[in-house]
């Protein structure tokens, strides 16, 4: 297993390097930072001076090298708009996004797992059919519409929840449901099919033959075996959620990383944009790696 972990780490590092390169190149295509940062009355000479001081006249690979070494030191550049190190700007917003994603994940897992298990156990009956339609609906509704409609029903019409912003736990409910809604469908489907697959296996029949009670068969025997693919998808989902809060945060004015990206883009603050996208990719690669390792740990067949 140690060899497997090492191999995966190497692969991930390679992927990360390529990702940084791609993002770096993209940001460079996006415009000349010197022009953007210069005060309106700057002359061409001033702008050229700025370019030199920002290192923009160096050849591309040198710039990239500097960029990489900066990353390793934790220097992600400086935000034009907020005039702070990008990492700080990001850190201010990130906990909010994390909170939102965690809440959404809780919603997704609770409903996704239970619906999935219940559908599998009642396969073919009305609950299963209802579950299928529910899952399809979940994947067909655009996130922003779910948010808007929830807002309209619960904040405007019923007045139970605040419309937008962050603050109390009531503020968290609608955004969490909005973000989690889409993934609930995927998890339900996956849980259902994974459970069905497992419930068909001989060792489940053996458990029943041994006289294990139905609930124990479903939850202890079947679910543990079914959980492997669910774990993989669940973790990836979490990262997708973390990286995909843009729409939800925009709809509800949630001060997180999503709104940060949009604000930064409209303000042409490319260092911040770059930072956010980079960190998002890091998360993904990291979680992917973690999941693979965890999978190997849970399934003893891979371990030995």
């Amino acid at each position, binding site marked *: 297993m140690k060899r497997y972990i090492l191999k995966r780490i190497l692969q991930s590092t390679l992927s990360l390097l390529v990702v940084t390169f791609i993002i770096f190149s*993209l940001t460079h295509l996006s*415009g000349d930072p010197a022009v953007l940062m210069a005060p309106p009355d700057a002359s061409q000479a001033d702008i050229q001076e700025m370019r030199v001081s920002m290192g923009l006249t160096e050849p591309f690979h040198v710039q990239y090298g500097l960029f990489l070494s900066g990353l390793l030191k934790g220097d992600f550049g400086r935000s034009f708009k907020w005039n702070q190190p990008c990492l700080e700007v990001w850190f201010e917003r990130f906990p909010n996004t994390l909170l939102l994603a965690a809440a959404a994940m809780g919603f997704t897992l609770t409903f996704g797992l239970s619906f999935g298990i219940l559908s599998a156990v009642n396969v073919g009956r009305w609950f299963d059919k209802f579950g299928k339609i529910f899952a399809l609906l979940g994947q067909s509704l655009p996130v*922003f519409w779910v948010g808007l409609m929830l807002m309209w029903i619960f904040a405007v019409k019923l007045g139970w929840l605040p419309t937008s912003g962050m603050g109390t736990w009531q503020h968290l409910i609608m955004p969490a449901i909005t973000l989690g809604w889409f993934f609930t469908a995927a998890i339900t489907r996956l849980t259902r099919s994974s459970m069905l697959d497992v419930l068909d296996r001989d060792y489940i029949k053996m458990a029943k033959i041994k006289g294990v009670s139905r609930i124990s068969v479903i939850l202890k025997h079947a679910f543990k075996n079914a959980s492997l693919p669910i774990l993989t998808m669940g973790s990836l989902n979490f990262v997708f959620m973390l990286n995909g809060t843009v729409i939800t945060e925009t709809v509800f004015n949630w001060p997180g990383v999503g709104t940060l990206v949009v604000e930064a883009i409209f303000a042409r603050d490319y260092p911040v944009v770059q930072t956010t996208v980079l960190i*998002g990719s890091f998360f993904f690669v990291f979680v992917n790696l973690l999941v693979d390792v965890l999978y190997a740990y849970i399934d003893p067949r891979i371990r030995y």
Partner: protein
Amino acid sequence: MKNLEHSTETKRIHWFFNREYLRGCLSGLKELPLFSIMLLIVFVFLGVFGKFFTPHDPTWTDLNAILLPPFWIEGGNVSYLLGTDPLGRDILSQLIAGANVSLEVGFAVVIIAGTTGTIMALLSGYLGGKVDAVVMRLCEIALSIPYLMVAIVLAAILGPSKENIILILIVLGWAGYARVLRGEVLRVKEGDFVRLAVIAGCSPLRIMLRHILPNIVNTIIIMSTLQLGIVIIAEASLSFLGLGVPPPTPAWGSMCAEGRNYIFDAWWISFWPGLTIMLVVLSCNFLGDWLRIRLDPKFRQI
């Protein structure tokens, strides 16, 4: 070589001419998701010919008819069936015209990303070795990058336009196809008929096109149906954020964005476009699911 190709093993690829398969098709016809198919036909029709069917010009502003509710609510007007927006433009007309954007972007992305993904999958799966390693790395990288964020960045860099959106979604979308189809190619590659073709001396290109491709067509069709829904939502999301097709071209996503500011008084501005998106995507998903069950009951997770 001709004899080998007509052997019983290779008959498998001629599924279309297989009597029993056709009979199975016809018996399954009564289970067709009629509603989904009809809705999609309407969608395509309106997407292409919509501009001839709008009750009003979608960009025509009538300042006397601002923020009218749907006709069945008090204050509504029958000539503006679903209401109007803050500039007095008819919602229904915008809705119909917006189908054009969704349709064009949807089909363009699905066709091009699908083709690219298929080619990559064939090369990667069949040729294996270094080609496979490279393509898989590319896929993994393409899938590591946060989809929506990058789409936004690219849209901002390249500027909002229909062509740019299509390009961005293709770049982000081919990897999904490639990964799944590569798995299928690997599975099909193990079939005896492929080995026979290799022994008979068929060139790799011929094998890929004539033997492997027809056997993964089912997966391609199913994925495309599902991807269409995903792309439509993606385009709408970008439009919602203001990075999609620029005004005055009507698009469902941007209609929702406008409606957001009026959610308190004029719910209909956001409601109708979102509902339409839902219906179209739902039909895609229904169709895709139905196809998945009909074309290969062994499918489990796509």
